[in-house]
């Protein structure tokens, strides 16, 4: 406790007279008085309402289009086909047609959405091997036990990428077609890259090391591994168009691997490429169709599939909850503030004790 002091007088063991030890540290003791609380409430109310109004105005400028294609258009045939697991390898294409009545201005984002698909189950989320996905040879060959039962195929070959998450990858593909006013059909160009977080693309997912430029570089890198059970093609052939978008750094894979927090979610599929007419300003008004390579079965879990087209503002896509919540909160605070003011005015004791 008290340090041994050199002097051994009668006060040798007297505690130090420091503000800390004597509990006399200078301090600020705030108190909830009417002078502070009421103005704070009014300020908060005004602030929330202003923010709400601003957000609401912003949100009004965004556009969103949701299209459930599970059984829509010609897809009901595919839907029926996918009901039977034995048909899994048979391709099925279908088309869904829809109009856009108001032009989508600016960047347009193309999402696929799933409903009632639980990416957030604990065992599902655990069923992956990030060490494998970052390209560690060791984990490539012997994936984590968390991946079970999607760890090894029936031949005992390690699966890459292992685990339930990768195994259940969403494998529908879409082509958006614009039906121009003159009956022309234009394939809407979509960026299929830049869909991921920077850190995911550049840090979290790496391919196993291989000699760049060597023959069959990818297959070599993944030699000795098997493709996931439900996959049609191995991981190094995911993108036939862009050889650099293969292996673990395939953007669709990365997007899928970022598990959704809730059973209903959407994931980014592509971004409108605005280099050529008529899409420089976004998506013009007109009829569109989506050609779908319908692979992902949703019947098993009573799920739905949808595509979402949306434009964004500075704070993201269309989201009505936030501005409304702010407006409501602001309103309630204002109400509360008024009530408190009245109570304080009428009954307030101003800190005085009743007994006196």
């Amino acid at each position, binding site marked *: 406790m008290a340090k041994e002091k050199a002097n051994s007088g009668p006060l040798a063991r*007297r505690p130090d007279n420091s503000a800390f030890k004597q509990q006399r540290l200078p301090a600020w003791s705030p108190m909830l008085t009417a002078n502070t609380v009421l103005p704070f409430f009014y300020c908060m109310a005004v602030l929330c309402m202003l923010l709400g109004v601003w957000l609401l105005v912003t949100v009004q400028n965004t556009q969103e289009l949701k299209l459930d294609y599970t059984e829509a258009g010609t897809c009901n045939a595919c839907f029926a086909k996918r009901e039977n*697991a034995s048909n899994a390898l048979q391709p099925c294409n279908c088309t869904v047609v829809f109009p856009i009545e108001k032009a989508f201005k600016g960047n347009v984002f193309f999402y696929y959405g799933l409903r009632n698909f639980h990416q957030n189950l604990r065992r599902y989320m655990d069923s992956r091997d*990030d060490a494998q996905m970052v390209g560690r040879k060791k984990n490539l060959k012997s994936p984590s036990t968390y991946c079970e039962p999607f760890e090894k195929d029936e031949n005992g070959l390690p699966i890459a990428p292992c685990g339930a998450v990768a195994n259940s990858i969403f494998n529908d593909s879409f082509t958006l077609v614009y039906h121009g006013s003159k009956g022309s059909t234009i394939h809407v160009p979509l960026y299929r890259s830049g869909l991921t*977080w920077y850190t995911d693309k550049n840090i979290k997912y790496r391919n196993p090391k291989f000699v760049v430029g060597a023959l069959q570089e990818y297959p070599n890198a993944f030699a000795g591994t098997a493709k996931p059970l439900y996959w049609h093609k191995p991981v190094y052939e995911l993108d036939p168009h862009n050889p650099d978008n293969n292996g673990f750094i395939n953007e669709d894979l990365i997007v899928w691997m970022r598990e959704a927090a809730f059973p209903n979610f959407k994931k980014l599929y592509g971004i409108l490429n605005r280099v050529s007419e008529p899409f420089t300003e976004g998506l013009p008004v007109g009829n569109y169709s989506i050609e779908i390579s319908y692979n992902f079965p949703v019947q098993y*879990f009573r799920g739905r599939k949808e595509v979402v087209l949306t434009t964004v503002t500075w704070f993201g896509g269309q989201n009505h909850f936030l501005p409304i919540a702010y407006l409501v909160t602001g309103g309630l605070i204002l109400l509360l503030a008024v009530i408190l003011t009245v109570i304080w005015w009428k009954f307030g004791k101003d800190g005085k004790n009743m007994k006196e």
Partner: protein
Amino acid sequence: MFRKRPPPEEERRVRANDREYNEKFQYASNCIMTSKYNIITFLPVNLFEQFQEVANTYFLFLLILQLIPQISSLSWFTTIVPLALVLSITAVKDATDDYFRHKSDNQVNNRQSQVLIRGSLQNEKWMNVRVGDIIKLENNQFVAADLLLLSSTEPHGLCYIETAELDGETNMKVRQSVSVTSELGDPNNLATFDGEVVCEPPNNKLDRFCGTLYWRDSKYGLTNQNMLLRGCVLRNTEACYGLVIFAGPDTKLMQNSGRTKFKRTSIDRLMNTLVLWIFGFLVCMGVILAVGNAVWEREVGSLFQSYLPWDPPVDNFLFSAFLSFWSYVIILNTVVPISLYVSVEVIRLGHSYFINWDRQMFCSQFNTAAEARTTTLNEELGQVEYIFSDKTGTLTQNIMSFNKCSINGQAYGEVTDPLEPPPKRLDFTPFNPLADPDFCFYDDTLLESVKVGDLHTHEFFRLLSLCHTVMSEEKSEGELVYKAQSPDEGALVTAARNFGFVFRSRTPGTITITEMGRPVTYTLLAILDFNNIRKRMSVIVRNPEGRIRLYCKGADTLLFERLHPCNQELMNITSDHLNEYAADGLRTLALAYRDLSEEEWEAWSESHRCAGKATDCREDRLAAAYEQIEQDMMLLGATAIEDKLQEGVPETIAILSLANIKIWVLTGDKQETAVNIGYSCKMLTDDMTEVFIISGHTVQSVRQELRRARERMIEVSRGRDGGKEGGVEGWEGACYNGNGFGGGQAGATGGGGGGEKQLQCPPPPGTPPPPPPPSPPPPLPPLPPQPPSTLMDNISGEFALVINGHSLAHALEADMEAEFVLTACACKAVICCRVTPLQKALVVELIKKHKKAVTLAIGDGANDVSMIKSAHIGVGISGQEGIQAVLASDYSFSQFRFLQRLLLVHGRWSYLRMCRFLCYFFYKNFAFTMVHFWFGFFCGFSAQTVYDQYFITLYNIVYTSLPVLAMGIFDQDVPEQRSLEYPKLYEPGQLNLLFNKREFFICIAQGIYTSVVLFFVPYAVLSDATQSTGEPLADYQTFAVTTATALVIVVSVQIALDTGFWTVINHVFVWGSLGCYFTIMFAMHSQTLFIIFPNQFHFVGSAQSTLLQPVVWLTIALATVICIVPVLAFRFLKLDLKPQLSDTVRYTQLVRQKKRKPVGRSMGGVRGGVGSVSEGRLGARGSSRRSGYAFAHQEGFGELITSGKNMRLSSLALATFASRHSSSWIDTLRKKKHAHTHTPPSASGECSPAPSYVSGSVPPLSTSSSVLGGSQDTPVEEGTHTPPVQSAQVDPVPSTHTPPPSAPASEAACVDVVSPTSVRCPGGDSPGGWTLSLGMVQEALFGWKGIAARTSGSSSPGPPSVAKETSNTE
């Protein structure tokens, strides 16, 4: 600790000097071990103990659960890190504690004592002393074990011990060895001693010992008189030898110390209950979620199996649900985080350090700071309702000082005027070379009076120097040391010494004093010893001129009855003085003398000797004999001794009782002393409605007295509550109100005041004084139905209860205790006197049992140990009497007055802080954990956590622990000086307002509300939101980061709201925690860690991509506002509409209004005695106060002195030498009585214990004159022998002290008296008749006034107090 205990002993056999023989019995050695561990056993035993804590086991269980992969919803380290932290902190603490125990054990065990081994004395450590050893003790040494005293250097095998450590009594006690062993003397003889003692097995009865010594074929009975108990200190004895009977743990001291109980605070207990409830809640949530899981797995999960098949052991949804239950138990266990217990301990530790560091609780006199010896009870200090205090050494310093005196109606002594500078201390040295330099007296008029040779003053001090049982020791010429049996006697003799009447030495038959420089030797004819009933002692001495005089000092109530009637006037004046003294809390004695003629003396001594020799009822006969001679005495004056209180005691008690703390004094002292101290420390006041004294000796009488007291209380409080319009009652009340304590105040205020009073409440003319409300007639009416306790709780009026040890023993019996508690708790102050250490503990236990109140026991001696241990909080006063109490205590400091600071400042703050801490802690954990519950509904009840596992690990121990710790340690609602100014601020603690079940539920509700907001707001916002670059925000990691950040911010804002005292540290911790959160989060989400452990840190990049999104911040802000605004509004309303006192004080502080008068300080007091007050009670109280008889000593010393037993030959020789030159008369006397004179030493040898008269000077034959004859003569002789006194009385003496009207009245009374006195003589033929006639005298004296008072007085212990009568006269 696993040592096998031998079967309980039935009897103990000990053979001296025979270790082999004694070893057979395997008696405990003298080694004392209070420590729990050694180096090897520490780890296993400590871990074993720690895992006996339910919480620790629970977390171990969780840890095991987490190791099962199918269940593990969290990584193992989320539990093991905190658990390891907790276990190691506790282990370190235990280790330190045990280290200190080892140290203190070692210190005690290694004390040296001299043991007789094989005929020679050898130094041995205490721990090596064995039963059966003979050890030598020297003066002022502690007794090492319970010893049978064998021999001593003092004559007759006597030795003196101080038992303060043992029973708290500071007076010395005598022990005597069995006569056969006392002759053994030196070590050589003792080495051959081979007696065998057979005695009772070890027990805890301090005052009883029963055994037999077998030696040389004879048996000798052994009693407690032969025993020296461990813990005593040898005093005034050069050395003694003892045989070890009980050692170490078997000693009475250790047997009495009781087992150490682990003390828990009420908050602890509440916390444990709440934790259990929370466990129940946890299980409920687990069940709900498990059911949810079952349903979900059946409805959805089974369909989802193609993507996620069940784990191998799971084959149906029910099993899955079962596993999910355990998984959720793991996740949700953070509602009761292990850090709760650690944090609580840390906070308490902090508070303990603040107590240790408090300079205002540092006593420079003893150089001791306050010490919190237990660190787990601090908040309980803020809830104390009952304080049990020892008296001696705790309330008082146990220093007696001769403070004031009244000699022949003239008062001397300092006039305490606080305004004037203190008068100079008198310097006695020029006047008297023998003066004691340490003696303090300030009034030089007394010294002047001695110097001018005032006869009364001389006689006064002569009495003081003669009438006592003090022994003196004169090491060298003039260097006197008095060995007084009680400090008050010492003070009186020292006072006489300084005023020129120096007691030099005594022999069994003489007392030599130096009177004004002239040595005078008096023949000591008899000592009429003190006892509790007599409350006085007398000596009969013959002065060198041959005149025989009886000097008497004693309690005024008893003495005044025995005065010669013509002392009336002086008696009135003196009793006024006595009242003044008593009002100051001084211990008073009245002094008187009586001249005896030779015939009288001889007649009496004969009857005395008869009485002494009587075989039956010796005591009674002796008392009667004493009674007979102690009559018709002439009053000299009175002394007032201050039993010095510790500094600040009355103030402390006043403040504590304003804080609604009830103070009970439990003392081993006598009733008078205790009551006296009660008054002087303002526990008992004149404003008290009534003071009840319970001193019955039987169960029945105690019960009756208790009931009577209660009836009185109800009666009074009814009278008080009900209308008291006019009438007799009203008159009485007013009268009483004006005059709180009978004559005391009247005397103090002087004549004018008396006149005024008379105007205020004139007795109804012509009518007899109002009949006092009948104090219940002796045969109790059939018991009224037990007053409902609510009635007793609402008793208005201030009562006090004084209960005696023997009555207490009955009151503590099972069927009585409820009654006792009921009565005692309705009183404002309770004083228990003559209580044993065990009773102290029982009283404390009683209150603990019957009242759900926190008790605190404070004491300084070993006799307080049991009480200190059994109270919720034990406080030891250090630096005075030894360290037993301190060692047993939870807190120690050296001054009673520090108690107010300990309770009102430290305790209050501790309680407040702990409550705020707990509220916040439960809140933050519910807010944190319940989010998982809500998430369960969205993640298929799969026990997926909302947060990153590192966040879960660190949330409680890093992100949120420090701010709440800072609040728990540093928070202050009002500054310290305010809590002393407004003792009422202490009340919330006693009423347990700040943290109780209700508060808990509010916290929980708030926590759940917060968790709802924290989950659903991000859910609603994020499920649809995207980044501005289009990537959805609804991914799990973003959601986790958002929620976690919102949570940390919300709880930080909440702690900011809760913190009432923002020191630098709070700022650093609050902001630091927030900073820490972001830093750690970014670190955990950094690529460096990910690259090293990709599977452990898969949140890589989440922090940056999430926290860069405005939506996320908007969400967090929204959640924070929604969480905080209602709380803010609620608190504001509470503060605005129902402010607590602390809020008000704080507000005042804030607004800096002018400081108001302390609240409640002046409450009570003034209302005095409205309602009816029994006159008789009043009288009784007066007398009980007045007889603050200043003796703490026991009976029997007179006998020792007169038998010469306790005198050494050397000192006798010295005494004779000293007296030789001046006292040749004594020789002549001796020659005269030659045939019958024994030389004192030889006489003492076979002296029977009985008569304490001196055989040497007793007339040889009893004359035929009866007892009565002697007393018949007395008045006549008195008349002739005391003209100066008479004249002094007739003089209109110090008229300033006597109200003019009373003087003639008493003079008239004095004249009046003559006739009854003369009438009395033939009538009174027995002591009983004598007293009766005395009563008649008094009636005659005060007849016109006193009848009513006397009737009621008959129920009170004492005869009607003179004070009362005089006040009526006025």
